[in-house]
């Protein structure tokens, strides 16, 4: 069974296999509910989200956030350290970086300066991971969650993906999957995209908008990592090799030219 709903600013598609149809339906519904729940906690566009609350008051006092938001913050800070500040969820701040985020015990968070956090570069991947965990929890053995290209699967067989070969034809393959790697994300720099919802990516250290001529796909163990790494590969180019090795991920890169050939 395969269902699709708008969420996380894109279309989220969930495919699940199970012999009992109502079990499948319940599991897929639970996975969509989980995604919505995380969106409400981490979206910059929800005024009540953890992220909006943190941005509003965390420089004045300690604030308790959900366990999930705390986890994503921890991972973001780890990547911030690993990349010497290139991956910075505080890039929207006037003044200050992820270094000014202090994670305290019991899911408490405080900022040393007023910051504007944006988890847009990492939270979608996390939501996909959690949706997969929810499906597994409901006893689903084979499933795939695809949130506009951030995808992860559950089960032994990787899903077939459409691979485009130059110049103009497509094939289904499983080649891009690397053994043990069950998650994948693809990022396009914004100026190469013509849809209205195109995202802009920024270099965390210089705060410059990225003008990468490349479309980047990263295959990794979790979708959170894959999601974050696409942007890092975009910034770092070939020097991202060490980081990819360190995080046990693989990147595939291709020039965007010719990719969006819509008239």
């Amino acid at each position, binding site marked *: 069974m*395969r*269902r*699709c*709903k*708008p969420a996380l600013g*894109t*279309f989220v*598609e969930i*495919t699940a296999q199970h012999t009992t149809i*109502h079990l499948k*339906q319940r599991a897929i*519904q639970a996975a969509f509910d989980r995604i919505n729940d995380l969106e409400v906690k981490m979206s910059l566009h929800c005024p009540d989200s953890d992220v909006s609350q943190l941005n509003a008051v965390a420089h004045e006092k300690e604030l308790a956030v959900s366990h999930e938001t705390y986890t994503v913050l921890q991972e973001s800070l780890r990547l911030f350290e690993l990349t010497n500040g290139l991956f910075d969820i505080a890039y929207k701040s006037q003044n200050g970086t992820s270094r000014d985020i202090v994670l305290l015990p019991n899911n408490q968070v405080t900022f040393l300066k007023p910051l504007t956090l944006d988890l847009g570069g990492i939270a979608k991947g996390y939501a996909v991971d959690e949706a997969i965990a929810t499906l597994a929890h409901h006893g689903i053995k084979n499933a*795939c969650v*695809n949130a*506009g*290209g951030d*995808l992860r*699967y559950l089960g032994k067989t990787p*899903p*077939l*993906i*459409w*691979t*485009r*070969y*130059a110049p*103009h*034809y*497509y*094939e*289904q393959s499983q*080649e*891009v999957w690397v053994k043990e790697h069950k998650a994948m994300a*693809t*990022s*396009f720099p914004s100026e190469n*995209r013509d*849809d*209205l*919802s195109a995202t802009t990516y920024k270099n965390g250290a210089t705060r410059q908008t990225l003008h990468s001529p*490349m*479309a980047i*796909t990263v295959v990794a163990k979790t979708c959170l990592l894959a999601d974050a790494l696409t942007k890092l590969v975009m910034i770092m180019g*070939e020097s*991202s*090799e060490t980081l*990819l*090795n360190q995080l046990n*991920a*693989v*990147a*595939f*890169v*291709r*020039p965007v030219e010719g*990719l*969006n*050939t*819509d*008239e």
Partner: protein
Amino acid sequence: MNKHFNWLAPVAIICSASSCFAVQYLTVEAAQKVCFPGATRFEATPIRLTDAQKKAIEKDSGISVKSKDQNVWKAYSGKTFLGWFIEDDVIGKHDHIDWALALDPNGVVLQVEIMNYREAYGSEVRRDTWRKQFEGKTAASPLKLQKDIKNITGATLSCRHVTDGVKRLLSLFTIVLKN
């Protein structure tokens, strides 16, 4: 070249779809069951908007109404009215997305379900030359070094139109169905 970083062996995702170019997620009947699992029957109550209603919806929602006809069902469990199921379509980028909105009796959104999604691969799909390239192809490709993948949604479609659709149908509920 390190095997973990194939700078020249690029790939990008299109989608995890199985075999066709359009994706049908759910039929109308299946979507109805997903939206109202407890329903025992669906009563078809199709509506045709009057010019005045069409204008009122456009004014209220700020979104133009393309069709005056709308397929609407009332979901019942026995005699209990559970809510409304409204079938609709919006333009994604070039093609239609069939979707459905489920509302409770008070007009609160219960579900948004995508039923059909047609333009998974961008406009290349519609070119004859592009389609012809499939003829006779097998999994063994000679051009592996230049392969790439394209994301099913990120590159060509926005779900903004579905969001607009929800807004428009909520106006339709207020102006037409509620009474």
